[in-house]
């Protein structure tokens, strides 16, 4: 009798253990792709606020991963209504056939034209890697009408009613907008996502980062297989004291020495930004020491088991 009880007892324990094991498997399979067969695709998505930010921030890394067989996605968040100076071109002083202007002044280009020019430049830059260009079309907070700089919140801004989705800072409060970025993550299921620094630099850059962060977290909560979210080390994070405190210290170091040519070729497509003379025009002829290694901070690593959703 005691023997039967012992057998029954051990059977019960086995049953209990099996049920527990099954429950745990179900739990992990629904809460972390890392415990299942769901894995991110070999895809790298780089989100830049403006047309050339992708190349500036992570052009070498994008080139390297594409060369390794990853699908590259080149995402431009803002529709670039501002920031175009046509007269900064390599042909500026090349004589009558190519004279762009004998004006001593350089003027910005109108909002709609700027947006068109910079989108075309971004498409050309994306083709260099090659990567798929994606435009999220968020509005710029400033632009030019003729030679007049117009700011968001002014009567003239509202009157012009520029095309595009809400401003990026506002979009971060809007579920639909977060969802649109989330849908991109669902579509591509990237192993690596790179964007700007949270709060590290210009408002539209920092808020772009926040929008991507929110979408990334949503993807994790919904078990979309996304991998790692990296952010560029920039702004206050570069402050020496901040670095000493342990914040702003990059943990990802990508050697892009062999991909600088691709990065610069892509940068050179943004003629309106650098006169078509590329980084040399902006930064001088010598490769900057920091450019050989592109560095990032891992903000979220969803590939690790038990990562909080």
């Amino acid at each position: 009798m005691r023997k039967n009880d012992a057998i029954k007892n051990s059977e019960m324990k086995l049953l209990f253990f099996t049920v527990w094991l099954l429950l745990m498997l179900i739990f992990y399979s629904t809460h972390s792709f890392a415990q299942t067969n769901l894995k991110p695709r070999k895809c790298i998505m780089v989100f830049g606020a403006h047309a050339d930010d992708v190349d500036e921030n992570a052009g070498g890394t994008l080139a390297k991963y594409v060369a390794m067989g990853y699908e590259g996605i080149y995402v431009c968040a803002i529709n670039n209504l501002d920031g175009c100076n046509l007269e900064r071109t390599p042909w500026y002083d090349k004589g009558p056939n190519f004279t762009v202007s004998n004006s001593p002044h350089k003027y910005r280009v109108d909002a709609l034209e700027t947006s068109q020019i910079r989108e075309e430049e971004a498409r050309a830059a994306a083709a260099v890697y090659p990567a798929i260009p994606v435009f999220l079309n968020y509005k710029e907070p400033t632009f030019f009408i003729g030679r007049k700089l117009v700011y968001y919140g002014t009567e003239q801004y509202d009157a012009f009613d520029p095309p595009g989705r809400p401003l990026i800072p506002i979009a971060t409060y809007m579920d639909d907008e977060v969802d649109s970025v989330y849908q991109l993550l669902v579509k591509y299921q990237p192993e690596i996502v790179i964007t700007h620094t949270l709060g590290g630099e210009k408002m539209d850059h920092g808020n772009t980062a926040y929008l991507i962060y929110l979408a990334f977290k949503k993807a994790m909560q919904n078990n979309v297989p996304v991998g790692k979210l990296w952010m560029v080390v920039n702004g206050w994070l570069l402050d020496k004291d901040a670095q000493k405190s342990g914040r702003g210290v990059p943990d990802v170091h990508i050697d892009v020495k062999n991909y600088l040519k691709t990065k610069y070729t892509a940068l050179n497509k943004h003629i309106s930004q650098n006169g078509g003379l590329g980084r040399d025009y902006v930064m001088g002829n010598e490769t900057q020491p920091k450019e050989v290694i592109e560095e990032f901070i891992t903000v979220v690593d969803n590939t690790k088991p038990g990562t909080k959703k």
Partner: protein
Amino acid sequence: MRKFVQTALVVATFVFAGLFVKAQSVQVAKWGEFGSKPGQFKFPTMIVADKASDIYVVDQHNHRIQKFDENGNFILMWGKQGSGNGEFNYPYGIAIDSKGFVYISDMNNNRIQKFTAQGNFVASVGSYGTGDDQLKYPYGVAIDDNDVLYVIDAFNYCIKKFSSDLKFLSKWGSGESIGIKLYMPHEIVLTKDGNVLLSDRQNHRLSLFSKEGKLVKRFGEYGEGKDAKPGQFSEPHGLAVSNSGDIYVTDRYNFRVQKLGGDGQAKMQWLTSGIFEDDKYFPLGITVASDGSVFITDHYAHCVQKYKL
């Protein structure tokens, strides 16, 4: 002999200057203000007169076309923002053929739409791309004597020709950036002798081509402000040709219209705003009615002005 030539030159200069100074224009009508009601405008761009001297205005930020009689009395309007037939997304240019059909460059929809004079949709051509039937942000449009439509395909860097039923005919321009040695050409018009004139805006000059795209000549140079000479321009934009073959140019940052002979020689000029204020005025589109009346749009002041010479 040398003295005689010098004297003749001095006399000729004074005679020419006298002609220039004596020439007068009188503003005989002005209509429009900022708004969306009939007769109001939001950032009007191009303008054209039909054979009956009715005036069609591209009301860009209202995404519509408005039609007036020659005195500014509202006749009809059509269009709203969208991508369906008869809808617009930041329309830009306008032209009328010999039968009275109206062609609109629907800029951000990357297409040309054709309408009756009553605004009924007839046909369209174009989508974003590089194919013959595709466009990348069409700007100015013009019609020649054979009802061939010329389109500035801004970011395919070429001029495309279509039949009046919007079938692709041919194109010219290298297809490369600035390949036709123009910089942001915005307006296009056929001259009396059958050549194609383009406002080479960022080069502050005009460029004349044969219908097949062979460069005939360029004229104009940079000059800005109250001291700008006749024949100098600061971002020339709108173009029109009168029945007598004279060329009219909106010289937008000199806030004036310049009238040139068919040979490009300056004949007269007048200020459209009376003052130099680049955040209030901005002459952009121009057309000449059959009786010689000149109509311009002011992009900033949201109005149309009519002049008699």
